């Protein structure tokens, strides 16, 4: 069946070995999906003109929620009436995205009936993104989502955004914390912040189970929760010999089925703190010098494992560049035990949000507020003591804002006494 709009440019993207979104959307359009037909036509126009054709429309949503729906209108409804309204719904994903076919088919049924049939699995933050529906369908979709699928919308706008974690203990031997439970617990605890905006801008939690940080928490989350340990790396000396003897494939096979493993060149010499030694028989680690970078562990996963006194490092303030430039998160809590129900952590979060809400300007991310007011103000607000682990180096400018409370007599001078000592 010929589609409504010719798409010679898009058709070029049906070639090549990588899965083609064009072929995919075309097969849905060929089944009589009018939204997909017009969406293809609109994309072809964008490809031809090298300009997008969507307008923003910010009033749409489901009643009582301030997030989860992004309003979108096409600027050529004359040509593509079936995508004149094409709103996005964000559906909060189960942490780390395990599904069964039953629930996904239900989502498909819902979206075929009430939306365009186009999705993103998943959006950058983690949500299931349902692309393209009309305003009148929002409430029916929300009803079905909550009643039949037992799912809820995700965050958008000045909300807590849908938190996400790595797959953690579900399938990884390196997870130092239960990332999935932490994410699920925080998502449930802070539902109101997720659906009803109150912050100066967006706020993201992300949790990775170890310093390899597979969900990019340190680069993308206002509050990064990264698993770590503070005791010794566990060593299986027999397995070390297995690697050295070429019996076990190094790096878990990530570099292919190699037999030429060189423990000195590949592990000992690459340790960033040079805290390891191997005498041909025994591997020794000076754990007090270890910075837990995970390199040796990932290269010899059957010989080395993280310690057992595990917890998390909490870092704050990561964000993309707008406005003050990109930031990575900075350490504020070097180590915290993260055990359900995470009471100590939640108390920290409440203090953090109070500080940000009271002091943040509109559209100022937490990281920018900290940059503007200084880490000291943040630490005071959340009642944390300074620690050398919070900095790469102490300051090298002399402009110290001394605290008058720590100076005898504060900032007051005795002018009379001064002039007794010094003539004017």
């Amino acid at each position, binding site marked *: 069946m010929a589609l409504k709009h010719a798409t010679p440019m898009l058709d070029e993207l049906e070639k090549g070995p990588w899965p083609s979104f064009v072929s995919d959307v075309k097969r849905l359009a060929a089944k009589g999906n009018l939204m997909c037909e017009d969406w293809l036509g609109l994309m072809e126009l964008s490809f031809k003109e090298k300009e997008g054709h969507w*307008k*923003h*429309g*910010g*009033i749409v*949503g489901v009643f*009582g*929620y*301030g*997030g989860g*729906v*992004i*309003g979108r*209108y096409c600027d050529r*409804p*004359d040509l593509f009436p079936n995508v*004149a309204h094409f709103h996005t719904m964000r559906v909060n994903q189960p942490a780390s995205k395990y599904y069964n076919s039953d629930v996904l088919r239900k989502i498909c049924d819902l979206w075929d009936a009430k939306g365009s049939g186009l999705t993103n699995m998943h959006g950058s933050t983690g949500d299931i993104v349902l692309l393209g529906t009309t305003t009148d369908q929002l409430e029916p979709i929300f009803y079905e989502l909550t009643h039949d699928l037992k799912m809820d919308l995700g965050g*958008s*706008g*000045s*909300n807590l955004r849908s938190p996400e974690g790595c797959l953690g203990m579900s399938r990884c031997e390196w997870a130092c914390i239960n990332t999935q439970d932490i994410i699920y617990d925080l998502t449930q605890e802070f539902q*109101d912040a997720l659906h*009803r*905006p*109150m*912050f*100066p*801008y*967006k706020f993201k939690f992300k949790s990775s189970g170890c310093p390899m940080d597979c969900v990019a928490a340190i680069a993308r989350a206002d509050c990064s929760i990264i698993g770590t340990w503070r005791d010794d790396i566990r060593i299986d000396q027999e397995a070390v010999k297995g690697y050295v003897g070429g019996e076990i494939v190094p790096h878990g096979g990530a570099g292919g089925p190699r037999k030429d493993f060189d423990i000195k060149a590949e592990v000992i010499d690459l340790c960033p703190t040079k805290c390891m030694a191997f005498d041909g028989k025994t591997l020794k680690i000076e754990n007090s010098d270890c910075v837990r970078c995970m390199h040796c562990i990932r290269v010899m996963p059957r010989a080395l494992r993280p310690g057992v006194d595990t917890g998390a490092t909490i870092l704050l303030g990561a964000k993309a560049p707008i406005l003050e430039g990109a930031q990575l998160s900075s350490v504020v809590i070097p180590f915290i035990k993260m055990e359900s129900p995470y009471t100590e952590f939640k108390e920290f979060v409440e203090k953090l949000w*109070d500080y940000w*809400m*009271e002091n*943040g300007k*509109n*559209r100022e991310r937490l990281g920018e507020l900290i940059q503007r007011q200084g880490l000291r103000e943040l630490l005071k607000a959340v009642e944390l003591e300074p620690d050398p682990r919070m900095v790469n180096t102490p300051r090298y400018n002399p402009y110290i804002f001394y605290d008058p409370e720590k100076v005898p007599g504060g900032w007051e001078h005795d002018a009379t006494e001064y002039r007794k000592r010094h003539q004017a």
Partner: protein
Amino acid sequence: MNEEAKDKIIEYVKQQKKSKLYFNDLCKAVPEIKMMQAKKVVNELISEGKLKYWSSGSTTMYMLPSEGDVAKEEEGMN
């Protein structure tokens, strides 16, 4: 006390020249209460239909239900 705060916020919104306000603009109407408390008051105003949300996708603002919206006006023009 919530009822009084609600009235103050609605009055404040009506007095503004712009139709959409940020959350901390709304808080200026009730400086005597904490922001977390103000949040609860604003939630009630939303659920009573006395305020509504407007979202740019990345940030959210509040407006009176009677106010129009750019997108709606544009739709009318098409």
